[in-house]
């Protein structure tokens, strides 16, 4: 009887189990690398956890690092709902950061309003960058994967050019001046924790995305277009407009990520400031099963990996192990089917054995 219940539990929550299996698989294979490097996986992973969750400081860092990841993950997930694979979150994030910086540098506004305008600018920046890919797709049918890759490769040197040239600050760093105080988000918990109100905006983005996708006609249409363009068209949905809008909105989410980074943490636009937040958004969206809530957890996980990396170095384990593990996590997510198949096979074998015993 008990067994049966267990099995039901497994079946109902299977989806989440596959995610967890992916993570465990990646950590297991990752530990081979750690051993190869002369480390002890338990100690190393222990250090990773300590460095990311082990103290208030660590928690605050993990939390802050997760915010941009949540937004890029959300961006990729949202775009995928409308049937677009958005590799362009990285570029959109950069342009969002640029727009927010411009507002932060050159506008003079009262504190709260200033940051709101900067956020708005970030949304517009990301959206504008995505719009290029979207319009090329709609008008000229240019493959979005390739145009967004190109736009990433364009955005990063473009911003480098601006930050190194027209917008450059004094000194040796390749960055703009610091933005005005009024554009910065206020602290909720002061330095050294440095928790700002940024998380509120991220929270709002998650909630809105969730509601839009699940409780609005607009979200319904988005999903319809993403699942079957033809049927959506026949039902009278304006598919051209919706795919365009879908990608643009996804871009604005990534742009918000970039903007918040500037107005809540870095206070200036630094050339190459993103460690690939946009690219990480892809596995995060998948690990989170493309649901806004799932994305939040997946982003936390990725943040734990990368925040914990600093502490791991004190154990003498190189940062490259972290990239290896991140790569493995993505590969394991992609191999979900292998895991599914293996589990099914194992279950079948067990069933055969059991029935054999009965007879």
């Amino acid at each position, binding site marked *: 009887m008990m067994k049966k219940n267990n099995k039901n539990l497994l079946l109902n929550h299977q989806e989440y189990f596959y995610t967890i299996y992916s993570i465990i698989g990646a950590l297991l294979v990752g530990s081979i690398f750690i051993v190869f490097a002369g480390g002890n996986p338990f100690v190393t992973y222990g250090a990773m956890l300590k460095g990311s969750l082990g103290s208030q400081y660590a928690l605050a860092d993990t939390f802050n690092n997760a915010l941009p990841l949540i937004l890029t993950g959300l961006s990729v997930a949202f775009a995928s709902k409308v049937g677009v694979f958005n590799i362009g979150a990285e570029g959109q994030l950069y342009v969002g950061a640029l727009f927010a910086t411009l507002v932060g540098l050159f506008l003079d506004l009262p504190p709260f309003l200033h940051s709101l305008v900067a956020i708005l600018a970030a949304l517009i920046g990301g959206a504008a960058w995505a719009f290029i890919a979207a319009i090329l797709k709609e008008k000229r049918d240019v493959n979005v994967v390739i145009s967004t890759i190109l736009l990433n490769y364009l955005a990063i040197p473009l911003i480098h050019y601006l930050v190194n040239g027209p917008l450059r600050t004094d000194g040796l760093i390749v960055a703009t001046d610091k933005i005005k105080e009024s554009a910065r988000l206020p602290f909720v918990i002061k330095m050294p924790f440095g928790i700002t109100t940024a998380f509120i905006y991220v929270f709002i983005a998650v909630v809105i995305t969730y*509601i839009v996708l699940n*409780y*609005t*006609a607009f979200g*319904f*249409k988005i*999903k*319809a277009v993403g*699942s*079957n363009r*033809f*049927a*959506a*068209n*026949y*039902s*009278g*949905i*304006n598919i051209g407009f919706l795919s365009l809008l879908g990608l643009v909105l996804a871009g604005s989410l990534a742009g918000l990520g970039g903007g918040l980074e500037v107005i809540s943490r870095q206070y200036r636009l630094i050339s190459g400031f993103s460690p690939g937040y946009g690219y990480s958004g892809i596995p995060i969206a998948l690990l989170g099963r493309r649901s806004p809530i799932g994305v939040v957890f997946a982003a936390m996980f990725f943040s734990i990996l990368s925040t914990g990396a600093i502490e791991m170095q004190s154990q003498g384990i190189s940062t490259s192990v972290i990239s290896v593990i991140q790569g493995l996590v993505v590969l394991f997510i992609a191999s979900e089917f292998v895991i599914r198949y293996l589990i099914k096979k194992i279950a079948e074998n067990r069933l055969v054995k059991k029935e054999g015993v009965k007879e």
Partner: protein
Amino acid sequence: MSVAIKTENLSKKYDSFFANKDISMEIETNSVHAIVGENGAGKSTFVNMLYGITKKNYGKIFVFGQEVDYKGSKDAIDIGVGMVSQHFRLIPEFTVTENIILGMEPGKKTYLNRAAASKAIYKLTEEYGLMVNPDAKVKDISIGEQQRVEILKVLYRGSKVLILDEPTAVLTPQEIRELGVVIHKLKKMGKTIIIITHKLQEVMDFTDNITVFRQGKKIGDLVTKETTPEIITEMMVGRAVQLGGKSERTLSKSNQSALTIKDLNFVSKQGKRIHDINLDVKYGEIVGIAGVDGSGQSELINLISGIYKGHTGDMSINGKSVEGMSIRERRDNSFGYIPEDRHKEGLILNFSIEDNLLLGMEDKKMFRNKYGLLHKRAIKKNALDKIHDYDIRTTSESKPCSMLSGGNQQKVVFAREVADHPDFVLVAQPTRGLDIGAIEFVHEKLVHIRDQNKGILVISFELDELIALCDRIIVMCAGKITGELERHAFVKEKIGRMMIGQVEENDEKE
């Protein structure tokens, strides 16, 4: 009499469900053997196993007395079994020759001599009388020609047994007749043919023996000469069936128009034209459009529904001109539309039944709650009502539509499009691929709508269907209207001649 193919207890399981269970049967060498049954009866599954693309779970297959255990279709081809599947297996971007030789290319492995291959294929087309240009790209030839390519593909592989899975589903009457001739010829040349079809007329005309499937099991064997369509139907469905709706219809034709089309002209992106179409559908009548594939019907319906843009001439639906109206605006004007291809255009297969029943109506007030969000309870109720009214066989409204059978999928489309009693309904290929029971259901529904004084325009390649269903038939050929007949004047042969453009003045006046 020798046996070409024999099976013993052949079975196929999907999870715990048997698509085929213990099928034991024999197919005589040099005969034409029909397999019939309702949708989902397991016909395709059965022949797919014979051809090695579906793996059996247990049971035995013998080909010419030899037991086979296929690893893939290559093994079947090698032993002389060939198949034309229900959905064409052709690559549109390839030429006819490339499609035929694919997988069994002539000559050396290191060089593909396309010119020589094309010559050889030309010879083959002459030999079997299956004329088609070997160098044409498949995407540029007609459906009938594509079917010939499929058959040539099988013959090219030297198959002695040909399996045809629903070969006539998409053919015009002329093309079906031609196919009949080919089958006859092939039989004469010593081939064995297995054919799956839902059209009993073809079964009677083309075949020697019949096997009936129901719910994955074999129900019985029949000899064609000794049976009638009624007997076959009863074996398939378990009861008698009547097509074309109830026999007596209420005479309700009004003189107001549901659809008016004046001087419609259009050229599609692919260069297809339609010329000077004038058409009128009154409330209370079913008007059918007959014509061979590519005569402009698709363009016409896509223009009416608003998918295609850029025509000249006037169209109005329910008295309103559709000029400048979006697709959605047209649909909101009491217009229901059942598209040609339910998988591609009618349904979102990975959406739940509930969501498919909402598609196109998501903006309606009744599905909004007071915050402007989707009203989940109303949506669910809508689904449950329609599932009940249209007898959609499912265990839950939240099942994805991909899990429904073809007939039930069509019911979902129907339910969505007509349940709110639109005044004008446009229906394309309403019963394509449906079994006879499902067809009966669809016909009944259509006639019922008509009797409620609504206008219906039906497009179908099935002439029999149009004759059974319509009050009036308009014939199209090469983008023009070539004739119009009232129900009392329906004569199949005459419509057939109009469909290929032979407008006989004398006949018209009769």
